[in-house]
């Protein structure tokens, strides 16, 4: 049992009519991991997660939770899972307390009252108010309570911190870390890298319905990437930094911004051919590393161009 992956996708393909949402997703998340499922909006994160919950049926391939097939063993798989939908909808006319009671009733004997009480306190959630009157953040808290209250083995969260203020985001991150510390698996999607960076062990990056990379956060951070900003004392030819692993981000007169990947030596030698007035290097964020390695070149160029223009 212990060696079964908590979440596994095997060649998951999903078409909506002619629209391809997933194009052969293979992924394995081990038990006890905090795994970030990362990708831009529309990449297929929600589709993959909803296949796992058996809300939608894959065109091909398989989604498994602790070795249980999401379709064949659907009920058993869902009994081991907690799920927070990305686009959370609850019953507007019920109060928080009624909502909790209803969903707890669907998992008889699985919700510990003391744990539930602590969870509600910790999130500073007021269960007496009707759901219809709750703010986005408070709804999200209620959604989290519903996902976590039965202390599931596998916690699946679709963009759990979206709509929360920074303080509540921090509380959620602490909760996820506490769940992981208790040996539970946390599988969550996000498009915010900094959040993933803080709490995940590993990340899987999905783009256009395909997993493009699975890496430990530590490795991703260890990737060599430098942002070099050089002020030259003379005009520099346009093609001066056309080297492998070096990309000119932008140029304002004699001020040149370079992104250097795995070729710092070559870049410095190219720089040294001209008169240098000032040079600064920047520690890249995970976001920049991510963009440098996984964003298609054309797209990041467009982004950079937009940033330079603004």
């Amino acid at each position, binding site marked *: 049992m212990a060696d079964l992956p908590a979440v596994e996708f095997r060649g998951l393909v999903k078409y*909506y009519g002619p*629209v391809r*949402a997933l194009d052969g997703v293979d992924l394995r998340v081990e038990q006890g991991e905090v795994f970030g499922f990362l990708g831009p909006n529309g990449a297929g994160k929600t589709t993959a997660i909803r296949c796992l*919950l058996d809300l*939608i*049926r894959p065109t091909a391939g398989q989604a498994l939770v602790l070795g249980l097939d999401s379709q064949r063993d*659907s009920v058993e798989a869902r009994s081991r899972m907690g799920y927070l939908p990305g686009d959370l*909808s*609850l019953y507007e006319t019920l109060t928080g307390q009624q909502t909790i009671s209803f969903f707890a009733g669907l998992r*008889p004997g699985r919700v510990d009252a003391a744990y539930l009480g602590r969870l509600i306190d910790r999130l500073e959630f007021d269960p007496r108010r009707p759901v219809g009157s709750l703010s986005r953040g408070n709804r999200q808290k209620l959604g989290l309570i519903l996902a976590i209250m039965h202390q599931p083995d596998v916690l699946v969260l679709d963009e759990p911190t979206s709509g929360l203020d920074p303080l509540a985001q921090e509380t959620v991150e602490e909760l996820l870390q506490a769940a992981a510390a208790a040996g539970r698996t946390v599988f969550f999607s996000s498009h915010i890298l900094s959040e993933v960076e803080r709490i995940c062990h590993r990340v899987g990056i999905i783009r256009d319905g395909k997993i493009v990379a699975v890496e430990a956060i530590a490795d991703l951070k260890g990737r060599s990437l430098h942002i070099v900003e050089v002020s030259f004392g003379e005009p520099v030819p346009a093609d001066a930094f056309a080297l492998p692993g070096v990309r000119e981000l932008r140029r304002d007169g004699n001020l040149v911004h370079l992104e250097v990947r795995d070729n710092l030596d070559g870049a410095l030698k190219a720089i040294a051919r001209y008169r240098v007035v000032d040079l600064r290097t920047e520690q890249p964020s995970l976001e920049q590393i991510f963009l440098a390695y996984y964003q298609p070149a054309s797209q990041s160029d467009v982004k950079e161009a937009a940033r330079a223009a603004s």
Partner: protein
Amino acid sequence: MPRLNVLVKTLRDLRWQVFWYGLGLAAMAALVIAIYPSYAGQLEDFQLPEAFEKLFGIEAYTTPEGFVSTEFFSQTVPVLMIIYAIMQGTSALAGEEVKGTIDVLLAAPISRRRLAVEKIGAFFLSTLLISAAICPAWLISIPAVDVDLSLVDVIVATFSFLPLVWAFYAFSLLAAAALPSRGLATGVVVLFAVATYVIYALALIVDVLDPLRWLAPFNYYNGNEVVAKGPDYAGAAVLTGVSVACWLLAVQAFERRDLGVRSEVSLPRLPWRRAPVSV
């Protein structure tokens, strides 16, 4: 095992509909009995065209049984209840999808079939409750006005229209499961109800249409004479059979479908429509 939580919650959600339907229909029942004595005298030498008599069952209008059947059981109440059935049928499961609550609901370890069966069960019970709520009105008004009516016959009749109501609920559930949008499903079922009623009503007068009468759900309910002659049990069996068949098909469609992606599958990707956000 979960303990029918969905059924209980659905019934709880329906409590006000049940309350107002029950109260409204009970008030109507009492009113029909209250006005009977003043009509009874006037109607004795009343002559109507034969077509009217067939359509509205006025041949027996002068008896208390005929009067109550015509005023209460033949059209008004079934039509009101059918409206309730169509509203509930198109929203029971499709409503959870449209509102997006299906995601949290089916994150719980209950099968789709169980969810559907509990929803159907809740509707079934709600209709029984509405009929039951009408009964006190008979029990009070009939002895009070001193109308010569058998309480048992009237109470049996009060439950006799339910198979017709269940059938329309089943059609609505099936339409909502099979068609891409809830509005379309409602439209189709309403159209079906109106069209088959027209066929049924005209077939009573025009012989050419008679072969089509079996198509109309109304054909299997004898609202015109239900108090005098008792319910059409064979008709009720047909309606119940059709309901069960439609429920099975609806549940099967619900079990097989992708949930909560209705607009994505049903609408063509028009150039000005953005790609669905939740892919």
